[in-house]
């Protein structure tokens, strides 16, 4: 069994109904689980940009990439696992937070440059952005307080400098 590593695949696709299903089917057929998925309009409205995080072995990944590139609606699909790219993620944490814990929670949030987006008697909702590893670290820090709800956008990425994101 080959080692599973985390891949971030970016795709430029036609902005049409059904394209997401076609892309998802390529992953599903080989049992390649999708960890996160972001779809948004690309700079031209005819196209959409997809960022997909998935975990699996190298051989299957190469097959999946080739199969994605074979789709007529996919302009291109590229894995960025070993590249230095700009990557960001946004997360909202709703944390159990009685008044006596508030200072402590806010101090930790400050360290992560988190923002308070909602606050009440029992809860506080914080927004954190950054690399996925930073969001993971914040998750660990908030766990002891009791995370009531968590939502993450999934990773988005862009290549550095003048180079266009493939």
């Amino acid at each position, binding site marked *: 069994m080959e080692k599973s590593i985390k891949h971030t695949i970016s795709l430029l696709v036609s902005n049409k109904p059904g394209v997401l299903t*076609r892309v998802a*089917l390529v992953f599903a057929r080989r049992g390649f689980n999708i960890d996160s998925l972001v779809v948004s309009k690309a700079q031209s409205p005819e196209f959409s940009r997809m960022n997909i995080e998935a975990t699996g072995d190298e051989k299957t990944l190469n*097959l999946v990439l080739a199969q994605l590139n074979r789709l*007529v609606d996919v302009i291109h699909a590229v894995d960025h696992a070993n590249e230095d790219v700009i990557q960001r993620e946004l997360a909202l944490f709703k944390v159990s937070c009685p008044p006596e814990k508030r200072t402590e929670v806010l101090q930790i949030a400050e360290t992560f440059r988190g923002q308070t987006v909602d606050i009440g008697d029992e809860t506080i909702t914080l927004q954190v952005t950054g690399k996925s590893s930073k969001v993971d670290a914040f998750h660990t820090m908030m766990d002891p307080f009791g995370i009531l709800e968590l939502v993450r956008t999934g990773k988005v990425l862009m290549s550095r400098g003048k180079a266009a994101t493939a």
Partner: protein
Amino acid sequence: MADKMKTAAEVMLDVLYESGVRHVFGIPGGNSIPIYDALTNHPLELILTRHEQGATHMADGYARSSGKPGVVCVTSGPGATNTLTGILTAMMDSIPIVVITGQSVTPNIGLDAFQEADILGMSFSSVKHSYMVTKPQDISRIIKEALHIATTGRPGPVLVDLPKDVSAALIDPTIENDRDLPGYKEIPVANSEDLNKTADLMNRALRPVIMAGHGVVLSGAEEPLLQIAEKMNIPVSTTLLGKGGFPDTHELSIGMPGMHGTAYANKALSGSDLIIAIGARWDDRITGIPENFCPNARKIHFDIDPVEMGKIIPVDCSVTGDAKASLEALLPLLEPGDTGRWNKQVNRWKREFPLKYRKEGKLRAQHIIEELARMAGPEAIACTDVGQHQMWAAHFVQSIKGRNWLTSGGAGTMGFGLPAAIGAQLARPESTVFTVVGDGSFQMTLCELATAANNKLPIKILITNNRYLGMVRQWQHMFYENRLTGVELEGNPDFMKLASAYGIKGFRVKRSSDVRKTLKAALAWNDGPCIIEAVVEQHDNVFPMVPAGATLDEMIIEAPRKKRSGAGDEQ
């Protein structure tokens, strides 16, 4: 504004016609009436089928035998879902067909309307591409794109779902509407580095084998393949779908590899130091367990589809591109090596382990298949269904060129044989067309006898009747301690009465000694189709056979010799 507005359906038929399409296969229903209405006075000829599966296999046979796309037009819901088997068959074997399905009117889609099926969604995993037309003015662009995608690169099926209100809408037919396919990849061209590496491996090989697949036939690479094989003196094995890509009659031909391949092809592959796969995708019926497949041989893979590279077998060199162009570029780089001893060895295997069957005793399917192919001549188009008879036909039909051998390989679709032959006869009316079917597979699409009879197509339908689903029976016999379950075809019709019910000529043959006489009469019968029912030995098994999970050199070359217990040879 044009002088005359046309319906989107009419514009669609015009685009098909202008692209060279002449026949449309299908059967109408409520949601395809606007398309059929447009066919009323159109030069496109409708071939009315009895079932949508038959229509797709006809389009497939049409495409396989001619290289031109086959076009299907059916209705929505069950009409559309009935095409899925044919679409899968075409996808697995890389066949260019365009399937146009009627659909509920646009406002009703997704609301469980009468005869609504999400055929677009169902198509995704078994088409090269698919469309739903939502704007009438898109129709000409989409049909042009569908034909282009189906026929270029690695060919395959394209589905176009056409809602009834869209097909009936009036549009200006003069609006130019060209292909717009930014994501459709160009055909890759083999790079010189890969070709040089390939040539180097081939020039140094002492025991090379070429494994020629469907890509050779699809790309028309027969000639450069022949030149390379002869120049380098390399034995050539043709896969089930590659049959005809290299002449079976050539002294370097070693027949089919794999599970029911020839003993000499499998021995050659097992003993080789270099396997050169050309347009063949290392199907599991050839490789078995990939890790155990010819581990001592280096491997080269020519394929047009980058997806196939390394998909099953890790190779030492891959050449991505069209087979014909790649082989033509490779030819000048090749220097004949020292394969003399190897060819002597391969020829010894050919002499020692020939394909054979018993000619005495009961009539054998192999006998009548071999005789029919021989008497029909080398230019005839041979079609098969799926099962034991298919493997025997692969063994005993001698193909000398591409597009004369039509069989469902990847999907293994029973019911393919008759409709594929109908499509082939329509595409090539001057050719003799015969189809070998089993009594089981034939009954899956036998309603298309009406289509063959209506169109007076002189197809010779050879039913090898052993009253069993023979291939499953063989597996149950060999690997499931002969627990025969669900394989006895009790209640088969009387095929002669069936022929006469359709107004078709019927011949029945039970004895080996009558084979030639019967086939002569059948081949002379040109007033529409005829059925030749051969009542054959019930318990014959296909050999050689590589049991599932075994390697090629562990094949069972012939039936084990046991005392006869009366029920049959292998019982």
